[in-house]
């Protein structure tokens, strides 16, 4: 249909000027980039200081400041830095924080570049010094006011879980004291992740199944010494925890990073191996060592939950702690309930065959399907369910 509008422009000579506009109509909606979006991260305040980062599309800065000195339609980094004073002045003028009646002073660090999915951005890092302690701070955001009403800044503060959009000319009253609620959110996130993440859960179950029994003369028999069984479980859980904490830390601080497409199948492999080990025992003692080495893999999986938050270092440490604590709480809940059930079940004659054997076989099958799904990126489960 858009075509049809265009043609019309060509046809109607008397109305050329206005009709030419019709050529600009969008067709089936496949044309657009993302609309103009900036990001503003406000950190955790310390007394009357707070770290601020404004990440803003260079295309927008150019529209306002005409940074393109040689008018070639693109920006070299030198063209941007040549105008850094103007860019800083613009931030001082249009991104204002204040406490009470008084504005905060921004000390802006040297300009940096952020290469985001929707284009090139300028990253302006600053420390805001406010006259009063920063519990509540007011934000006046006026970038592109009267120029592009569809611009949005996505605002992140220590208390927010998802960024909040703000339009040019909007004011926001920010409560920066709510850091604990963010901590709480991450704690909840950690619990939800382990309880909802079937792979971590099944891995733990696979390790716990043989803990309440003992292998004697090639057969499984109920452990009589419950203290020993409990100790074994504690060792397993601790080893798993320590291991995944290490890799979660390493990945979150970008010291080591392994892409999800490698880690996700590997996690499934750990479930498979743990389950197979119950069926054809290779490692019968020191399951804690298995939990430790496999836990390293799971930690990288946990890190993928935190990575998209892109938290600054100082907050990341706290976030990491909160998230990990959540994972441990969830884990403790699983282990306690599973252990109690297993202690009751272990006396049953069929435990070895049905709980440990069939259970592990089922775990192995599940893990196998996950591996196929994650390696080939096909939803086997979904297909199987849909086909049923």
């Amino acid at each position, binding site marked *: 249909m858009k*075509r049809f509008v265009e043609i019309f422009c060509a046809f109607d000579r008397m109305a050329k000027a206005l009709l030419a506009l019709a050529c600009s109509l969008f067709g089936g909606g*496949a044309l657009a980039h993302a609309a103009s979006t900036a990001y503003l991260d406000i950190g955790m305040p310390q007394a009357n200081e707070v770290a601020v980062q404004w990440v803003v599309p260079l295309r927008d800065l150019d529209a306002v400041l005409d940074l393109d000195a040689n008018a070639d339609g693109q920006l070299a980094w030198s063209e941007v830095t040549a105008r850094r004073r103007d860019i800083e002045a613009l931030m001082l003028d249009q991104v204002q924080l204040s406490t009470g009646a008084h504005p905060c002073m921004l000390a802006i660090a040297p300009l940096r570049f952020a290469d985001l999915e929707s284009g090139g951005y300028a990253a302006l890092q600053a420390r805001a010094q406010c006259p009063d302690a920063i519990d509540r701070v007011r934000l006046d955001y006026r970038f592109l006011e009267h120029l592009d009403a569809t611009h949005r800044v996505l605002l992140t503060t220590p208390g927010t879980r998802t960024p909040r959009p703000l339009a040019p000319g909007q004011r926001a009253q920010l409560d920066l004291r709510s850091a604990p609620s963010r901590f709480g959110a991450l704690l909840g996130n950690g619990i939800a992740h382990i309880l909802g993440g079937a792979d971590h859960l099944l891995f733990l179950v696979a390790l716990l199944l043989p803990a309440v029994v003992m292998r004697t003369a090639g057969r499984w028999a109920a452990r009589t010494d419950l203290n020993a069984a409990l100790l074994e479980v504690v060792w397993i859980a601790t080893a798993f925890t320590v291991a995944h904490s290490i890799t979660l830390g390493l990945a979150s601080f970008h010291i080591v990073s392994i892409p999800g497409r490698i880690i996700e199948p590997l996690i499934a492999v750990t479930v498979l191996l743990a389950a197979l080990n119950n069926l054809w025992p290779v490692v019968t003692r020191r399951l804690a060592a298995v939990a430790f080495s496999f836990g390293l893999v799971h930690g990288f999986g946990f890190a993928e939950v935190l990575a998209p938050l892109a938290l600054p270092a100082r907050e990341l440490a706290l976030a990491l702690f909160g998230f990990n604590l959540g994972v441990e709480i969830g884990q403790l809940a699983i282990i306690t309930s599973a252990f109690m059930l297993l202690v009751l079940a272990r006396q049953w004659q069929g435990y070895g065959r049905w709980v440990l054997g069939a259970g592990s076989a089922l775990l192995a099958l599940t893990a196998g399907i996950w591996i196929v799904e994650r390696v080939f990126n096909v939803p086997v489960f979904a297909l199987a369910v849909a086909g049923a």
Partner: protein
Amino acid sequence: MSTRSFIRCLFVSALLVAAAGANGAPLPSSTPQPDAIVATQLLPRAQKDALRRLTAVAPETDPAQRLAAARRMIELGRINGDPRTLGYAESILAPWPAGSADVPVDAIVLHATIAQSRHAFSRARSLLDRAIERSKPGEPAFAQALLTRAAIAQATGDLAAVRSDCQRLFSLAREIAAICAASVDAVAGRLDTAIPVLRVASERTADSVRAWALGALAQAYEQRGERGAAENAYDAALNASDDLTTRLAYADFLLARGSAATAARLLQDAPPTDGVVLRQWRSARLLGHSEAAALEARLATRLEDARRRGDGSDLLHARDWAQFELERGAVAEALRLAQANWRDQREPADLLVLARAASAARDSDARAGVIAWMKRTGLQDVRVDAVLGEERS
């Protein structure tokens, strides 16, 4: 491992974690080389100047210049696919808010065009009704408004309204009216009437008119499953007038046929809009290229950002996003997006995505909706038939 050595191991690990914590995270920013290109597709200097000047001066300054600048902004957006130009155009038109009484009729049409570009169809339609009411058939604004209203009606599947607006165009431009009528016929079960009309029209016209007729012809051939003829028509359309929308439709056609390499070549130098990146991703996947993962991550981030804006940006191109989720295996989300898209947009390509999502999700209600629409309008489309047929067997 003895208990003692295990404890030692724990202790070392704890130290490692603590050390990692003290190390600090690198921010996702860098300092590029001075000559590194960090942004492209900037607004041309003339438009930057116009934008700054016209948003700063008194409202009554030079209305003709203001209208021309707003128009130019919208045109630019169509070339580079950047919706921020719509925001700029709106700011230039700020002295004439769409709602007030004494706004020049040309400004109303421009406001309507902006709304239409943002898929705010009902707002655009009511503005156009007002513009048509306030102008006479001899005035440019009249034809412009009529044409835009017909375009919206076609996009939203209001075929009766397209027909009636086409008819009113007949006295102004016969050729246009014929193509317009044929493009309605093509989606209303009269492919056999539409195709010869479009073919003849494409032979008698040139440039963008010819490209329009050929693009519509290619779609009609696709609906009938005549792939060779469709390919020739797409080629000829791009030769007559290169246009991103035609290129994307052509790329979809090529991808559906499995010609991923040709599709990739077609989009090689296209501006990286969401629609372009989506199709680049699809072809990289079909070809087994390694950059598919990066392209997918890029699209996922863009979609997430669009959602976070909270203004429905994510639904603006819901047809494309539905296709994206569908191919990623997120079937339920794909169906949600396809249905959201279908509420606004009802062209064959929209129905096709809805049918695919409904079929993948095994949603019999959604599927029944697709069949009902085909019955009601008489739309013939072998691609939709194939999707529905697959599920039946």
